[in-house]
């Protein structure tokens, strides 16, 4: 029985530009209180009078964006089981706190003595993340996970240079996120792909063979993108360290470990954290996130500048770090995200953080338990915070992963992550997070079972899903062949 469906109001709404009418206003500025005596040279001024921006009323703006917002699915609607993306609940308290005037209206160049609150907040968050990861040096500057990866590799490179040889190669398992090899390339490293074992773990023999004195680092996601803890992590770290390399851990899945185990204790040298995954800050439809890195004491001198220091009386920014890799972003990173993350840590506390981890792992295992007879598990092993199935059993009816994902929309859920990791053909990666209670999990399990039945009895229904959305599957190939990347008035669009 379908317990949930996604019908909602589907308003018609064009673009904001089509609402534009000459003379409409949506703002009210104070009158100019100084004499208007200045005129710049006409050659420097716009000659289009900003004709491309709309002229609309406040109500137009509210209606327009409210209507199009209803076309989105959201965590606040229901379970958003995107594996590896960690779509957990975004506490409203964090939102409120991040908007306090003292944070939101403070300028990045405030003298240190006028920004003590901000600096203390940064230091507290650094200290908390150091304790959680077991790695003492933390930089909050990276603006997202991928930038954290890049920064972490730069720190590794700088350390190896200081040791005498930057080396050439970064080893990356074939199950890694695409950002890993892309980040390594930005840092001037060649990427060498390491095969995983059938269980999705690092193949120790292959690693030993590859770990020579050209290797700067191994980039390892733990738990892996298959959702499994790397049981040999200590041995993995030892192999790298014995060969003179360092270990970079992609912390995208840190939400399976917080309070239970610490990367620093495993022998990891650098980790990045996605505050928008593990620490509950909102994804915002694709950012902003934040990607702090935590490193060992040996690597700390290489972290980006400035560093926040406390001299016993005052918090200060320290720019005098001669070994630093430099800056990776202007000012202090995505500060408004950092405020939310500290708020999350402080409201949960030590116990709450561990409980969140335990619940996330429990939820994933509960789904695995109830669906393993219906869908084939993509990988054997002890699932942590996410579980992977594949479409082998449904394929005989012509139903594929994509179809199952799209059909899930009709049941009122966001699809799971599909076709990732690449090492599992037809992967469906489900991550419920700790935010879901048992009732929602049961509804989801029902929906997945129902889709499996449909795949047997009425495969066409699944293959043509979704049926309840405002629009159907879009032709992405045609869109890429002749890209239309901006709106144009009908008169201009026709002439193109």
């Amino acid at each position, binding site marked *: 029985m379908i317990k949930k469906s996604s019908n909602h109001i589907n308003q018609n709404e064009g673009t*904001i530009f089509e609402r534009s009418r000459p003379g409409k206003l*949506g*703002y009210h500025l104070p009158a*100019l*209180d*100084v*004499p208007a005596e*200045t005129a*710049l040279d006409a*050659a420097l001024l716009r000659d289009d009078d900003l004709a491309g921006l709309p002229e609309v009323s*406040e109500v137009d*703006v509210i209606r327009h*964006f409210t209507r199009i917002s209803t*076309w*989105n*699915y*959201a*965590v*606040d*609607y229901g379970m958003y089981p995107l594996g590896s993306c960690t779509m957990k609940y975004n506490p409203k*308290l964090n939102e409120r706190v991040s908007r*306090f*005037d*003292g944070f*939101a209206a403070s*300028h*990045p160049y*405030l003298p240190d003595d*006028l*920004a003590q*609150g901000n600096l203390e907040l940064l230091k507290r968050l650094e200290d908390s993340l150091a304790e959680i990861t077991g790695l003492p040096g933390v930089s909050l500057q990276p603006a997202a996970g991928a930038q954290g990866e890049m920064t972490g590799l730069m720190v590794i490179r700088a350390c190896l240079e200081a040791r005498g040889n930057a080396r050439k190669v970064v080893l990356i398992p074939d199950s890694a996120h*695409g*950002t890993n*090899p*892309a980040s390594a*390339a930005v840092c*001037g490293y060649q990427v060498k792909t390491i095969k995983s074992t059938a269980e999705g773990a690092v193949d120790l023999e292959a690693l030993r063979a590859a770990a020579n004195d050209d290797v700067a680092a191994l980039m390892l996601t733990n738990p892996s993108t298959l959702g499994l*803890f790397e049981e040999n992590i200590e041995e993995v770290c030892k192999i790298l360290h014995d060969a003179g390399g360092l270990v970079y851990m992609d912390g995208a899945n840190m939400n399976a470990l917080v309070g*239970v185990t610490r990367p620093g204790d495993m022998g990891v040298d650098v980790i990045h954290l996605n505050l928008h995954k593990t620490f509950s800050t909102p*994804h*915002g439809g*694709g*950012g902003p996130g934040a990607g702090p890195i935590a490193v060992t004491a040996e690597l700390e001198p290489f972290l980006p500048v400035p560093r926040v220091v406390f001299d016993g009386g005052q918090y200060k920014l320290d720019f005098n770090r001669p070994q630093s*890799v430099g800056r990776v972003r*202007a*000012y*202090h990173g995505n*500060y408004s995200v950092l*405020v939310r993350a500290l708020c999350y840590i402080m409201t949960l*506390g*030590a116990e709450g953080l561990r409980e969140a981890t335990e619940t996330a*792992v*429990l939820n994933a295992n509960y789904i695995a338990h109830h669906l393993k007879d219906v869908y084939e598990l993509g990988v054997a092993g002890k699932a942590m915070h996410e579980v992977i199935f594949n479409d082998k059993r449904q394929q005989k009816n012509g139903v594929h992963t994509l179809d199952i*994902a799209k059909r899930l929309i009709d049941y009122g859920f*966001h699809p799971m992550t599909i076709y990732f990791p690449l090492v599992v053909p037809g992967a469906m990666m489900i991550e419920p997070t700790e935010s879901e209670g048992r009732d929602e999990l049961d509804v989801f399990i029902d929906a997945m079972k129902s889709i499996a039945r449909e795949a047997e009895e009425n495969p066409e229904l699944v293959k043509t899903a979704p049926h309840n959305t405002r629009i159907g599957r879009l*032709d992405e190939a045609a*869109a890429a062949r002749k890209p*239309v*990347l*901006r709106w144009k008035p009908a008169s201009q669009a026709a002439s193109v």
Partner: protein
Amino acid sequence: MLREMGRESVADLFTGIPDKLQLKRPLDLPAGLSEPETLDFFRALAERNSTRVTGERMTSFLGAGAYDHFIPTIIDTLISRSEFYTSYTPYQPEISQGTLQAIFEYQTMICELTGMDVSNASLYDGSTATAEAVLMAERVTGRSKVALAGNLHPEYRQVVDTYIRNAGIEEITLPYDETTGALKPESLAELGKDVGAVIVQSPNFFGGVEALKQLADATHKAGALFVVVVAEAMSLGLLQAPGKAGADIVCGEAQSFGIPISFGGSYCGFFACTEKLQRQIPGRLVGQAFDHDGRPGYVLTLATREQHIRREKATSNICTNQGLYALMATVYLSTMGRRGVREAAEHNLQKSHYAAKQIAAINGFRLKFSSPFFNEFVVSCPKPAAEVLAKLQSKKIIGGLALERFFPEMTNEVLVCVTETTAKEQIDSLIAELKAV
């Protein structure tokens, strides 16, 4: 749940983690706070920052890439809708049309403002957008050198330095004219054939408007790409679109469009280029598409440039960008619209010039540079800037940014910013206090 699964305890779920690696103690963090305690804690922290309304209640003339502009109330109303801020990157277009259409509108507005053909869906901020422009120019031209304006925002420059250190790209600095503070187009005449891009900021870090047309022509003569960085996007309300001057790439910071100043982040980097270069652009792009019934919608497109497909051969490693903040800018530009952006920009121009004129008339003070400016200018003080600013601070005024931190020779110089949010009385009290210095 555990019983149903045939497990005895939660610990059973973690047997995949070797016992010796399991943390046997609670994390050394404070116990969780209740909601009222949390609010009190963060309120107290926030109060220890001095803004217009907290701490020492300061009047501020700080700019330098982070600008205090009026923010219409409805921006926060709209971005606080769960559908926008609690959704993911729009990989499933059927249930992400709200985000996708908003980005499509954002891309259109950025194209209009910059005068370019194609805009991406946003990058982290102005500094990283500049670094991405440098990397893109190298990809497009295959040339290994990049020429950066000496009056580029120093923190943008530092970010570029970091990004290219391992990319095999060499930097050249284009000196600015000591009198005007702006670049000299004739200095580009000697650009070598190995220079792939010229990176110019306008208004430059000192607030001056650059002669973009002449600089573009000189750059193109050398076969390089002309990249214009705009750190103060409000200036585009008044100043000629860089695309009209011949820019190949226009990038920068959209914080001025309705995004809180928030200690420097989160912001919204924008990035636009010509159609010719569109397949080399970094970051996400949203394009129009149709479903099987011919209904129009939007999708992420040209993904073959990106890391999740191309891995180490991608045009950038960027994944998450600044979706919600691009939405803020879109709502801002819709609400203020054609006339509001223009009016706000005009107020910036008039108020900053009113302030500059008064300051220049004070004995011992003068404007350091002669270029036309938008809302920022450099003041040379008769005493060390630190001394002057400390005196002002005791009167609850942050007089601007002492430039010595970036330009050691500028011991007496202060970068002063005046926006539409600065009232005439505040400018007048700055003048009065400067007279007393």
